[in-house]
């Protein structure tokens, strides 16, 4: 099941150093790419069907086109930027750090190709503040690349300037949202921006900017070297290629495994993950980072790991970071854990999210602490209705879907808790 494209060098000792990386083929695509016109890369990416791997799964090629087209149309902005989103903070997701830890040069290579394709000469890596180790490692790799003439005034001898800067965030989950990320990068408070009404790139200090996830960018060298068709041989028609899938929670072999899209979730858990820990039964899986609706054991059996199939069964593939829960897991506590996170991380811009996340967190706390009221579940669904689809970004809708997902699938557990509270109140 394992297909290694991004993770091919992960297990080589010292893979993060320039010497080892070069010995294993990193930076080989540069010579070919930089002698061709820049649109060739863009076309190849578009043909490959590469989808953004930060969770949304939007086609990367279309996004690149927006950035280049905006640049062409808007003659006043001579600049454009590439921003790599390394603000990996979704609970259950820990794939991007593997790239930074084990193959930072692959990322740099991908950035060089992407910048050349969209005509950017300055690129930023926005990394979450808590990732100090990874930021240090990246900086070290970037320094190596500069020293080796791979970056700077002349990229690998070609007449193309490229500078990469690592920017550490200050620890906000919302800064992984691309427009909030750019606000933060501009030095402002990380608040998502109002969404444009027609397809448009992001704008960093008024210049068209492409924001992509690390893993997306790290996939670019493979596609440039081997062509779109080679990438398309993996995965499904609509979800081509591979993804770094993650396993955590009650599982025997937690970790990051690169697989083509379209594999069975159950098979993945059982074979690669080694099954549920301590031989217990599977109860539920959060399929792709905390913000995707939870699946029960029955749904897991049917689930296939690509964007379309996951959507069909009422959840989302997200980042592919699966949280496995065994039969003893208390779903009310699990939801409380997630809601505490969202309560803490809501940026506080839009009313429904700012007040809603705090309120639902409080209600679940009450249910856990035997202070529940009879109509609490109804209240929760009321609030989640208000939070869904009425905010600037998708944070609140995600929370609403998480709540709805838990209550829809494990309503009896919540009701049992509420009954306990009510019984106690009567006594």
């Amino acid at each position, binding site marked *: 099941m394992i297909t290694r494209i991004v993770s091919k060098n992960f297990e080589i000792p010292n893979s993060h150093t320039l010497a080892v990386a070069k010995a294993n083929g990193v930076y080989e695509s540069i010579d070919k790419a930089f002698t061709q016109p820049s649109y060739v890369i863009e076309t190849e990416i578009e043909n490959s069907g590469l989808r953004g791997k930060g969770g949304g799964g939007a086609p990367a090629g279309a996004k690149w086109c927006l950035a280049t087209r905006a640049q062409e149309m808007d003659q006043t902005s001579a600049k454009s930027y590439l921003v790599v989103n390394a603000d990996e903070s979704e609970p259950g997701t820990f794939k991007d750090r593997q790239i930074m830890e084990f193959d930072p040069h692959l990322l740099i290579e991908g950035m060089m190709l992407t910048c050349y394709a969209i005509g950017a000469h300055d690129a930023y890596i926005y990394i979450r503040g808590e990732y100090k180790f990874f930021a240090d490692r990246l900086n070290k790799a970037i320094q190596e690349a500069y020293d080796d003439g791979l970056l700077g005034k002349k990229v690998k001898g070609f007449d193309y300037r490229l500078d990469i800067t690592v920017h550490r965030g200050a620890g*906000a989950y919302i800064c992984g949202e691309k427009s909030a990320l750019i606000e933060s990068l501009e030095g402002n*408070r990380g608040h998502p921006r*109002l969404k444009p*009404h027609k397809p448009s790139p992001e704008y960093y200090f008024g210049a068209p900017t492409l924001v992509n996830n690390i893993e997306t960018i790290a996939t670019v060298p493979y596609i440039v070297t081997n062509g779109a068709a080679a990438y398309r041989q993996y995965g499904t028609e609509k979800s081509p290629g591979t993804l770094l899938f993650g396993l955590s929670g009650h599982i025997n072999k937690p970790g990051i495994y690169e697989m083509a899209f379209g594999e069975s979730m159950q098979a993945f858990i059982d074979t690669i993950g080694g099954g549920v820990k301590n031989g217990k039964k599977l109860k539920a899986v959060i399929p792709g980072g905390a913000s995707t609706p939870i699946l029960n054991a029955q749904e897991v059996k049917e689930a296939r790991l690509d964007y379309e199939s996951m959507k069909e069964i009422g959840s989302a593939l997200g980042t592919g970071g699966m949280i496995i829960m065994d039969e003893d897991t208390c779903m009310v506590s699990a939801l409380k854990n997630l809601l505490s996170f969202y*309560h*803490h*991380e*809501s*940026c*506080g*811009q*839009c*009313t*429904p*999210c*700012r*007040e*809603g*996340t*705090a*309120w639902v967190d*409080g209600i679940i706390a009450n249910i856990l602490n035997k202070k529940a009221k009879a109509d609490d579940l109804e*209240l929760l669904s*009321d609030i989640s*209705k*208000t939070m869904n*689809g*009425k*905010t*600037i970004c998708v944070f609140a809708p995600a929370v609403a879907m998480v709540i709805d997902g838990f209550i829809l699938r494990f309503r009896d557990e919540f009701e049992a808790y509420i009954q306990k509270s009510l019984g106690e109140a009567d006594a």
Partner: protein
Amino acid sequence: MPNMVNITVDDQKLKAPEGAILLQVLIDNGISVPHFCYHEALGPDGNCRMCMVEIEGQKRPQISCDTRVKKEMVVYTKNESINDLKRSILELELLSHPVDCPICDQAGECSLQDYYMEFGLNESRRPKEEKKLKDKKLDIGKNIILDQERCVLCARCTRFTQEITHTNELAIIGRGNDARVSTLPGQQMHTAYAMNIIDLCPVGALTSKDFRFRQRVWFMHSAPSICHGCAKGCNIHVDHNQEKYKSDTIFRFRPRINKSINGHFICDEGRLSYKQENEERLDDFYHQNRRISQENALSYLLRYLHDENTLFVVSPSLCTEELVIIQKLAERFDIKMNAYHDPYTDPDFGDDWLRSQDRASNLAAVKKLGIPTSKEELLIELGKTKVVVNFDHKALCENNAETQNMLVNKTQIHFVSHLFPECKNHELLLPIASYSEQKGTLINEDGILQKFEAGLCNEKKNLLELLHIINATPETVEQVWDEILAEKFGLAYETISAEGKQL
């Protein structure tokens, strides 16, 4: 010119400029759509989510502040699902609100209160001990008190300091329901326009230290007037009330929207200048420190008007009608006039926005009427005169050496609205109404002629009325225009619109 297109709002056909902000179009057409964060001067921010409307063809309700007018757009602002939505957002806004309307100065002009009465009226579904407590009664400087618990985090105030004044004193700190407006640690508001955030605040989070607890807004009457603090001519509301057994008193000035002059804002100094209208006012006629009647005072005055050695010194802040009537009087008695302007120049006050270094509010009219303003001319005339009649000129009331030297050995007659040191010891002292008590017109530094209305209704005679008694000149502003100014300026009083008229 924007392309006007047809749109339908709640089955009503409207014409609107294509591409305009839908919410503004709705507001301009008198369709009430609740909103907190949108403000015409600040533009959309999209955070409050109150201005949601349903648009045909869109699967979800949209915020109208971030929706642009399109041809043949069909909008619903009042159907049941939209009202439900407003109710649920309001419920969230009120979750941790202290609901202290009875002691809140915003009550009566509070959007949150109004919307709750219109859409909410729900019982709280959250126990009050779970409310999020924040800081109250924070003095953030410049007469502004911040109550974080009443705040709906619309960010109008922070956007004002960031986008309008560029002084960045305010920011939102904290995340989620811990978010709150705050100044930087240890710092305070310092912009000269700070108090505008009090008007911008749609709720009671920002209140004026000066106005707090002084008056319920629904008791007050409001008159459209113009700030007389400088030559900019910012439009203001004069909010006043006559409480039982007290005289009519002004409680505050608020900016009045005039897009061609001050937009939505005024400076703090202008805003607080209302105090001068209440305080230190001259009420009676005096002759050599003796209180006398109006009749006697005017007969004394007539005696001096017949004196050959009399000079009129007029304030360049008097309204156009007063200036022209004084000019008539001067012509009849063959008296020279001067509107000495130097004392009204204050370079420290001027800036490149709403504060002009010319602190006289009607210099343009003075010049239009051909009244001299220079010090040289004044000194020449003073050399020839024994009697000086002062029409509210501030320099002649100030106790500084320069003016006292100029006036040494002169017989002084003062038409003034306010008391000043030693004023009663002068030959003759005549009280007149101040600008907040009368109507008139001013021409600002950009040549815009504007009307202002009388606010206070105290029984003080204004200058026109007093001069009418001795000279039978027109008694009211309308008469002055009919008989003199209409011809002089080539336009009728009635044609001066609320926005003013560019001359």
